[in-house]
């Protein structure tokens, strides 16, 4: 139990949990206040991005490189951590149906949270924690700006649409695979840091990092 507890503490899990619950409550409140046609798709598209970003950033740890040297596998720890946060987020959002009955909104919110979390974890693995929220945010912006008539705009689909659910689950699967894999932490981030150092050297100045 102690490794799990330490693992969760090193990932700021308590703060992440509080923020997820606060975001779910804010979603309840905004859906209760707004009946506008713009309001529901807006929340359906963007609130899951916020929840997913919190989960994605929580996956990061300052001790990640040190942890790589341990002999014990951390796959189960990562699964418990990310799966637990996702479960809490899904339940908290789904409970909104009892507070603000809006058939259709809440299943879509849960589905989009799963999909965006997958996207965030892919971005986390590729670009590192500082940039992990950028990809889902940009994607969601483009989805919201679109008419919703394209398959890539699955977050705007009705909850009953199987294609949208499959797209979200596929993204979550890829994201979880990225997060659970033992590949060294954020190789692309290393390349970006390398490019930045090269940029600094070219200008003849010492790197400030």
């Amino acid at each position, binding site marked *: 139990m102690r490794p799990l507890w330490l693992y969760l503490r090193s990932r700021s899990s308590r703060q992440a949990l509080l923020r997820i619950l606060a975001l779910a409550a804010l979603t309840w409140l905004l859906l209760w206040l707004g009946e506008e046609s713009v309001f529901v798709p807006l929340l359906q598209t963007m609130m899951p991005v916020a929840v997913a970003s919190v989960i994605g950033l929580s996956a990061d740890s300052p001790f990640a490189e040190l942890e790589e040297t341990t002999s014990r596998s951390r796959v189960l720890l990562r699964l418990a951590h990310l799966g637990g946060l996702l479960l809490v987020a899904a339940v908290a959002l789904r409970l909104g149906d009892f507070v603000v009955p809006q058939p259709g909104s809440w299943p879509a919110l849960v589905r989009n949270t799963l999909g965006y979390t997958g996207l965030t974890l892919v971005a986390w693995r590729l670009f590192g924690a500082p940039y992990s929220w950028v990809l889902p945010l940009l994607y969601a912006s*483009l989805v919201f700006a679109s008419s919703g008539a*394209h398959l890539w705009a699955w977050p705007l689909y009705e909850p009953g649409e199987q294609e949208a659910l499959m797209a979200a689950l596929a993204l979550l699967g890829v994201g979880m695979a990225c997060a659970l894999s033992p590949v060294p932490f954020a190789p692309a981030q290393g390349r970006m840091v390398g490019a930045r150092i090269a940029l600094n050297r070219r200008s003849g100045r010492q790197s400030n990092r």
Partner: protein
Amino acid sequence: MNGLRLFRIEARRSVALWLAPLVIGAAWLLARNDLALGVILWPHNSVLARDSVFFAGPLAAGAGAWMAGRDRRHGMGELLFTTPHVRPVRDALIWLATGLWIVAAYLLAGVIILGFTALRASWGEPVLWPLATGFLALLTCAALGYLLGRTFSSRFTAPLVAVGVFLVQIGVGHILLSNWLGMPGWLAALSPIVPVHSSVWYGVRPNIGPGQSLFFLGLTGLILALLAAHDVRDARGRVAGAGAILLPAAVMLAGVGLLRDVPAVSLSETSWSPRWSMIPYEPVCDGEPVAVCVHPAYRAVLPDLVPAVESMTEPLAGASGAPRRVEQAPEMPLNLTGPLAGESSAPQVIPIRISTYTWAGFNATYDVAAGLVSEQPDSRLNDAQAAIKAWLLRRAGVEIDCSGRAQVLVGRSVFTAEQCAAAARFAELDGEVQRRWFETQLPALRKGQLGPELLP
């Protein structure tokens, strides 16, 4: 270390450096459909250049928040207290370095859009105030993000600030327009992405550029003053800080005052008629026997539109009550919903919409088909009208959807299977039989008095 050198170092270390290419890429994705249209118009694309703020604003805010909390997250906060630079100067330089990367990307995307427009535009002239207000709004977003990142220094702050800015700018810019919770509609102009009218009939209206510029300038100054006041400890500093806050607050309020005077435009008032005078124009017409007339800016759609209209009107030629003219209706300001402006009361003139948001000919063809089968084309069609409309659209080469599902996919019209079957039966009739049927039944069909059982 002088300020310029510190600025250069911060600019190189900024997280926004890596966001700049993303801003340009996303701006291209957002604008590419509009730039691929056959009709390129200055009023529309002047606003399009500003619309990158839609996602660049949240990114600027998120980057600002991330940069503000960087030193403390890395445990360098106390170390940096020992540097000779005062904290407000360092804050201002980090904010500027972060904001300017996003602004540079935004301006580059804007220059690409406007440059393309300069080469291809068929009407109007550049309007630069939307681009300028977007520029100021991005600096404001970066400053707001920086202030929040400085106040709540956590790894979770950046994405939450970015999503928050996204929600606020959409909420204020779009939802307040409909007087949500009884709030005045002019408040929507406080959002950098508030929809403004950008048609060739009225130009880019209303001109909220001066008001918005003053508002964003004042708000940025206010945020920077609050940041500076954050570290003030002595009484003299507090007095100076209060003075520094008053000036930008006054500028901001002046901007709000200007925006309040802008004529209220509300989405809920769909019959709202603009107080602006229409820019005079002479329609250009083509086609026989039914003339197709459009605004000269849309002349390029005529070669596609006229054959489509002719293929639909040809079987109706000579029938009593058949429309004689198809005319493009002026777009209403903030044409996001609802009825056509300038809708003609004469039943023999079909008003058509040519939207810059979809393929130019699609809406028009759809409107013509609806106008041929009904005297009230915007109202719900009965089964007989829908069946003939489906047949007409197929004649014009428009792909139709017979699934009956209540959704309209791009480039498709949705009909029920029964309506499509009736259209197919009608299509199998001889041309002369179809013509005779229209001669006797067209007036009743257009009035909606014909049931599906009366279709041949």
